[in-house]
């Protein structure tokens, strides 16, 4: 039994190391000075320095990391809150009255399985015609579509879990539907809103394809901005700086994910198994 457990720990450490290897290597490189990056490619940092991070945050206008972070934050906010707002009413109708369960629900859930590139090209056309190209709102709107299927599924699940007696009691007290939704259902859905929001925010922050296609200068998100640091300007890629950028870019979803990992894994299961 003892031996078995040690073996399990070994497997865990190996798996964790292998799967997190790119992250570990990037963090290590981010703390290496320009001289050490080429001389010492190992994971062990000899002379840790914050220089790379300072460089990242003081770079030129051409690579403005504050703008990238802001763009990502705004777009991911729109992309995670908007689907909750539009899906909440119909999620109630779907779970309490089975309204739209036969056609609308599977149709929307299946959006999740489609290759995103299918939407990207026609949206490029529409956006360039309506002035939404290269705007944070434009990016946020399409992220909202990306997040809509899972949002709808999680909200339908959450509402189905609310004891129907609570709703009936409110109805007996004479509350009409809008009032009942706002006063009874909405507060009880708060935990589901938080999970959905966190999930949507991480998905939105991490999205790359739409950022690449639908933005050029003003609304470039962090994922796309980070790739700019790899386009070598003259003297080749500055690996230490590039690594520091990736650490900064990956940090917000990483922190959210670590804080919320229990709920995230729960909703992932719900999303995969019901879909």
């Amino acid at each position, binding site marked *: 039994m003892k031996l078995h457990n040690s073996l399990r720990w070994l*497997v865990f450490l190996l798996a964790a190391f292998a*799967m997190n*290897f790119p992250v570990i290597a990037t963090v290590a490189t981010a703390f290496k000075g320009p001289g050490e990056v080429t001389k010492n490619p190992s994971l062990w940092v000899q002379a840790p320095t914050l220089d790379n991070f300072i460089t990242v945050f003081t770079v030129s206008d051409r690579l403005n990391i504050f703008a990238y972070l802001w763009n990502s934050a705004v777009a991911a906010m729109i992309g995670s809150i908007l689907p909750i707002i539009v899906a909440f009413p119909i999620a109630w109708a779907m779970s309490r009255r089975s309204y739209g369960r036969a056609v609308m629900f599977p149709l929307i859930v299946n959006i999740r399985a489609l290759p995103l590139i299918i939407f990207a090209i026609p949206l490029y056309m529409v956006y360039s015609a309506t002035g939404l190209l290269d705007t944070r709102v434009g990016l946020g709107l399409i992220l909202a579509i990306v997040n809509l299927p899972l949002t709808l599924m999680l909200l339908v699940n959450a509402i189905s879990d609310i004891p129907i007696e609570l709703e009936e009691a409110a109805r007996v007290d004479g509350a009409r539907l809008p009032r009942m939704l706002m006063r009874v259902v909405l507060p009880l859905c708060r935990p589901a809103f938080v999970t959905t929001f966190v999930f949507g925010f991480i998905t939105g922050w*991490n999205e790359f394809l739409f950022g690449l296609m639908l933005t050029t200068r003003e609304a470039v998100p962090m994922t796309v901005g980070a*790739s700019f640091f790899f386009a070598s300007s003259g003297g080749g890629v500055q690996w230490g700086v590039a690594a520091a950028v990736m650490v900064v870019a990956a940090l917000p979803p990483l922190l959210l994910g*670590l804080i919320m990992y229990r709920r995230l*894994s729960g909703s992932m*299961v719900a999303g995969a198994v019901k879909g």
Partner: protein
Amino acid sequence: MKPNRTVENAVLASPMVLFLLAMLGFPVILSLVYGFSETRFEALTSPTFNGLDNFRQVMADTSFWQAAWFSLRFGVITAILQCTLGLFLAVYLAPLIRRHSWMVAVLIIPMVVAPAMIGLMYRLVLHEFVGPLPHYLFQWFGASPAFLNGANVFKTVVVAETLQWTPFAFVLFLTAYQAIPTEMREAATVDGTRPWRMFWKIELPLMMPTLFAAVFVRFIDGFRVFDTIYTLVGPGPGGATTSMSIYIYETFLRRGEIGKAMAAAILLFLSAFLVLAVAQHLLRRRG
């Protein structure tokens, strides 16, 4: 009461339906218009109808079929690898995780990092001068393969994708495994069932629905892959890593062949739709 309810439901549905129509309705019409027309970037608003020309061009393009074959292979192989590894980790580590649930958090880190970032990170990891992996391989074995050349690049992107998304399969299987009632295991243990037999005869059959769902979800994600591969190697040497998504992207933005890209996107949509319909039909029959 009845008509009132119909109106009520329509009102409840309207925010989402209107949002979907606004965001996807018009683009769908545009796809169809441009898919059947010839258009250039200089004259985006004046497509000229050319019937099935775009579709004929796509069908005759060997790189389209190469991309389709790549995506199919990539999707199948990564799905199988991820589910096998994920299943093993979930079942083998479950006794430890029961006591140390933080282990799950460590193992799901790769999933919350953007796939685009993972691709960029591997550029660093695999770099022949600054990358730690070639460094250690040289130190230990005296040689390091060229990870991104034509012969190895497929394996490299498969491993990168597998290591990032095995955690997804792992979480699904762990949840399914933990949901198996303990009495069932206890009864089997009392009967003298060995662990290996217990897995094959009791646990695995109970996890079958999850296994199907996991393989399916992972296949879909592998099939439509873009970010990881694009940021790591782009279309790859000789188009070796051009997935369907990358093919359409390159056709559209790099080569400016709008009609052809649209036609390819429509074909991709139809094939995805077909796969979904078949899979859901199969799942329903089992369930």
